[in-house]
């Protein structure tokens, strides 16, 4: 990690942390200024986050998609990009940032603590399928995280008439946001699994190896398939669906960060 990258990285962390604090102040104090300020801090943070990624890419001479630090750096970048895109186009509320931003800077911190030493890109990583696999993995995670943000507010919202909760959109709107982002995440998740299978076929000779990480990712995929089915055919909506969304993100988080606990995996992970 070179000095410019270190500076950019820490500015990013402070901006994201500031955005989160400002969001909390705005939300609890019911002040629009806090949330407005939080959005701007997030954008400045994103600018420095991009600079961190570019600096790392130049120094390592390969896209940041190989080790834990790089995967988390890239992943959070896509997550924030996704959130900012839908927030700016008015598809989601700024309030959801209250869930997205802490997930982002905690993920960045985890990546940083795992080691930032630059290692040349080994032959196994030199595949365009890896780039596709990683991008769609994080777009899926970002979509599911936004969905969880909406589900979280749906669960804490007591009533649409409650004045203290006027920063939170109506419950039905949150339910629809949550559902649509699960759909988006599910499609990205499917592309991630397929591109991973193509990469695995080229790398190991088999498209599926029942490795703990890929199996856990399949479990998460099946869980979201269950959600979509239950919503369509059993009418599971609102609170029931919201609890499922939160459970889904926890299952997914295990496949991203916790699967090493269950035994060795041949799959490099974040």
């Amino acid at each position: 990690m070179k000095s410019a990258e270190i500076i950019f990285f820490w500015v990013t962390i402070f901006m994201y942390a500031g955005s989160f604090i400002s969001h909390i102040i705005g939300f609890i104090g019911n002040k629009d200024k806090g949330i407005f300020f939080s959005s701007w801090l997030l954008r400045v943070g994103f600018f420095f986050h991009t600079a961190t990624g570019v600096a790392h890419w130049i120094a390592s001479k390969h896209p940041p998609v190989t080790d834990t630090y790089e995967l988390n750096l890239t992943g959070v970048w896509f997550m924030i990009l996704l959130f900012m895109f839908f927030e700016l186009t008015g598809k989601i509320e700024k309030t959801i940032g209250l869930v997205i931003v802490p997930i982002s800077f905690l993920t960045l911190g985890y990546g940083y603590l795992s080691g930032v030493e630059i290692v040349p890109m080994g032959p196994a990583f030199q595949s365009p399928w890896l780039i596709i696999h990683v991008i769609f993995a994080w777009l899926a995670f970002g979509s599911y995280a936004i969905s969880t943000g909406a589900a979280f507010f749906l669960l804490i919202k007591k009533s649409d008439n409650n004045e203290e909760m006027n920063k939170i959109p109506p419950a039905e709107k949150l339910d629809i946001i949550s559902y649509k982002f699960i759909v988006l995440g599910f499609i990205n998740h499917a592309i991630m699994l397929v591109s991973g299978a193509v990469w695995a076929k080229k790398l190991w000779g088999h498209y599926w190896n029942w490795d703990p990480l890929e199996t856990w990712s399949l479990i998460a995929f099946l869980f979201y398939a269950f959600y979509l089915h239950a919503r369509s055919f059993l009418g599971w909506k609102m609170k029931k669906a919201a609890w499922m969304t939160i459970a889904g993100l926890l299952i997914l988080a295990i496949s991203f960060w916790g699967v090493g606990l269950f035994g060795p995996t041949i799959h490099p992970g974040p």
Partner: protein
Amino acid sequence: MKKKKKILSKIISGISSSKFALYLVIALIILSIAGVLIPQQSEYTLKEIEKWSSANPLLSSIIRPLGFFHVFHSIFFLIVIVLFVINILSCTIVHFINEGGLRSLTGKAGIKKTGFFLLHIGLIGILAGGFISTGFSLDGKIVLTEGQVFLERHDQYLRIVEGPLRKEIHKEFSTRLKDVKITYEKKFFPVDIITVLDFIDKENRALDIPVQINKPYTFRGFSFTLDEMGFSPRIVIRDDSKKKYMLNSFIALKTFRHGVEWEYKDFLPLPFLKNRVTLTLYPDHKLLNGKVVKTSEVVSKPVIKFEIEDGSGKIISTGIIPFKGSSKVGDHIFTFADLRHWASFRVVEDPGYLLFGISVWLSILSLLFRYSGELFSLFKKG
């Protein structure tokens, strides 16, 4: 007659129902979680399973007869998959008929419906492809030293796993490892490994074929995937007292990776050696206070360090054998006569891959159709 019809229609509606599909998804989730939590049988995990079994004797006594150490090939998993195929197939047909057949695919709602039907057809294709792969595939491992030839026959594989439904048929073509070229970054980190292979059988020949990591080659349906590489020194062992040559062979040393550091090491399982002898290869070296230190992974000044152990595993003697030179190792004279690379390949014949591949892409496309409305509302302006 009416009663029979009623029962049959009840069974069909039960099997094709969405509720049944949900139960099957739950069953798949549970079996997959079991597959992650319980160590799964493979060539690498035999010791791990024994360790787990002795730590959990009661659980192990239940799990073993149920086949849960091989959960994804167990009878339960197979039953769930078969039921899943029946469910998807019947659900698709019932929906298709109830919704007016081909007419339901027209109009505005037609895109969603087409997506729904294609998705289910794709899922059946994925499961069928997976079933063919599991039942009929061959997965073998071979290790070749530069110049060595492999004949595609059962007994020529170092390790081989075949699907339970596959008949033992081999194509008996030969493969020769011609060359291994490695590019290192900063003399230590391999960034490019190219192996060059010749494939020959009675009718076809493919010569000078590069096989790299991530770039396999398929010959007569067998894909060759580069797995690992290492060094094979040629060792000549001579018993000086008997004036007799005991060995003259290339020995593929194991490659161990410690982070970015690589180590090439193995012991010689030779019955005529009284003590255990371990050889470690240094592709390039320097001597520092009498100790051998690796200076690069690139072959420049190779040397072999030997270690002799007594019965308790204690090292009793150590020394080096220079390239093209000899050293006395115990009662024998060891000569480091030549140095070549070895490369290991996974050799896979998978008849289910094509069906699986087509089906997954069909499923992705149909997912986009099925959820086109939701996606459109997310990306449209306003």
